[in-house]
């Protein structure tokens, strides 16, 4: 079995950065913000590369839809083991519905059998592109994967759910989204970073796809959440219990000793 895998990757503000919002309500200040590959996408890519290393896949294509600077993210993907990369270049912010539609068009051209992608991107926290893509393609889906075993055109996927770990069999082709515990992504080695420079990175204009990407959601405002009031340092467990009883948060049971 030799799969062709597509891994969509998104360039986002790095996870550890505390965002600063612009005063005009337009969203976070991106100037000088440290950018990185969405961590869930990195995990998805790692899984795809491992499947290729196990001989289950022979081609891993990393796709990003975004600005020219996303080439950097794709070079990272190539250094991490993707075979090829495709940038669909656009300066506009594209919503998940349109992203899923563009990905569906690429998959139709490429004839891929598996899409591995992050369960969400840590900027907009939408948690929806994967199932949307599966819906467009009419493919099976498994979300929030913490384990994937591929054999005989089926993926056995362990999914992290509210009720515990649920295992599903999904026939290929399928869309699988990655959760945090799927794997520990590798770091790109220097030789692989050098090699990545020679791997093919194609750039196509978004317009070439002829897909309507007009936003469906009008963004009214982005603002800071309410600040929590500074709290109180309590010295002892007894003090804590007294405070919680005063606030009626715990029943007034036996008196603190």
């Amino acid at each position, binding site marked *: 079995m030799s799969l062709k895998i597509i891994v969509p990757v998104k360039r986002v503000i790095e*996870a*550890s950065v505390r*965002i600063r919002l612009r005063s005009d309500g337009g*969203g976070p200040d991106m100037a000088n913000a440290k950018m990185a590959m969405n961590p869930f996408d990195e995990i998805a890519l790692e899984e795809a590369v491992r499947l290729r290393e196990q001989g289950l896949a022979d081609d891993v294509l990393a796709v990003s839809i975004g600005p020219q600077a996303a080439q950097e993210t794709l070079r990272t993907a190539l250094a991490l083991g993707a075979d090829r990369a495709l940038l669909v270049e656009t300066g506009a912010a594209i*919503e*998940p*519905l349109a992203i899923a539609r563009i990905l569906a068009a690429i998959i139709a051209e490429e004839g891929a059998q598996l899409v591995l992608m992050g*369960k969400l991107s*840590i*900027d*907009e*926290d939408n*948690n*929806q592109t994967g*199932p*949307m893509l599966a*819906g467009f393609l009419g493919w*099976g*889906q498994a*979300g929030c994967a*913490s384990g994937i075993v591929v054999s005989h055109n089926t993926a056995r996927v362990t999914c992290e*759910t*509210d*009720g*515990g*770990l*649920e*295992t*599903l*069999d*999904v*026939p290929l082709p*399928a869309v699988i989204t990655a959760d*945090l*515990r799927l794997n520990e992504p590798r770091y790109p080695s220097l030789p692989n970073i050098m090699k990545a420079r020679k791997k093919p990175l194609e750039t196509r204009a978004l317009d070439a796809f002829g897909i309507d990407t007009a*936003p*469906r*959601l*009008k*963004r*009214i*405002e*982005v*603002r800071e*959440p309410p600040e*929590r*009031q*500074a*709290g*109180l*340092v309590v*010295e002892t*467990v*007894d*003090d*804590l*219990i007294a*405070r919680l009883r005063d*606030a009626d*948060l715990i029943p007034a049971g036996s008196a603190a000793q």
Partner: protein
Amino acid sequence: MTILVLADHRDGMLAGTVSRVVTAAQEIGGAIDILVAGRDCGAIAAAAAEIAGVNRVLCADDPRYEHGPAERIADLLVSLAPGYDVLMAPAGSAGKAIMPRAAAMLDVMQVSEIVAVRGPDRFDRRIYAGNAILTVEAQDARKVLTVRASAFVDAGRGPAAPVQALAPLDGPALSSFVSLEASHSDRPDLTTARVVVSGGRALRSKAGFAELILPLADKLGAAVGASRAAVDAGFVGNDVQVGQTGRIVAPDLYIACGISGAIQHLAGMKDSRVIVAINNDAQAPIMQLADFALVADIFEALPELTRKL
């Protein structure tokens, strides 16, 4: 306006999140129906019918819907969509899998995990791990929404609405259920619990977690939560991870024990009414956020707290 709420359920019980989604639906305004899909789910449908403000419950009771296959339930929603202006569901694992699939099939851009209703088309949601609030206006004629249940109150109970059986849809089976490694617990559900006791890496081991966190939770009738570090270290199951990528909670009382408070964890709990943090590091981020911060060794403070409650 007509609204269809997809019910979440587990172990034969209606999820507590559903009646909170009904509250969000009432804020949008309109006739509210609930869809229950599952196997032998009559009792769940009956429970859904008793949520205040519900007009009707549609019950698709069929082996095909056992274990909630996302593809089949999305198909069912799509088939019902022509009768509704709004489709919504709790943003639990089922809603997150099913709703976007249905949205794409309906050519609708979903509004994910809303935390406030500002008008029939206008919603607030959190972005950047809760560090910003985005207000959007949904311009699609039909709306598909998931709802952060912790941001809405329970709708309460009312006279039972009629339950109408729904014929299952044919269509190919895609994903199929193999097994569930469930963490059985008599404790309240994490998402809707009034009190949550959460443990972090500082508990050092599964035994440490069990010996310090569970008795305190039992004493308080609380749900148990954990930081990502504690879940990664195997102290406790994934289903109790609180944070940006785990469960989002907003209880009356959140007690964080030995949790430093990475922004991803804070994203999951900082809307709690009162936060207590117990940590030996006074500088830990969670201590800056807590209403009551106790600088102490959890291995001493937690047994003492449990004993004295």
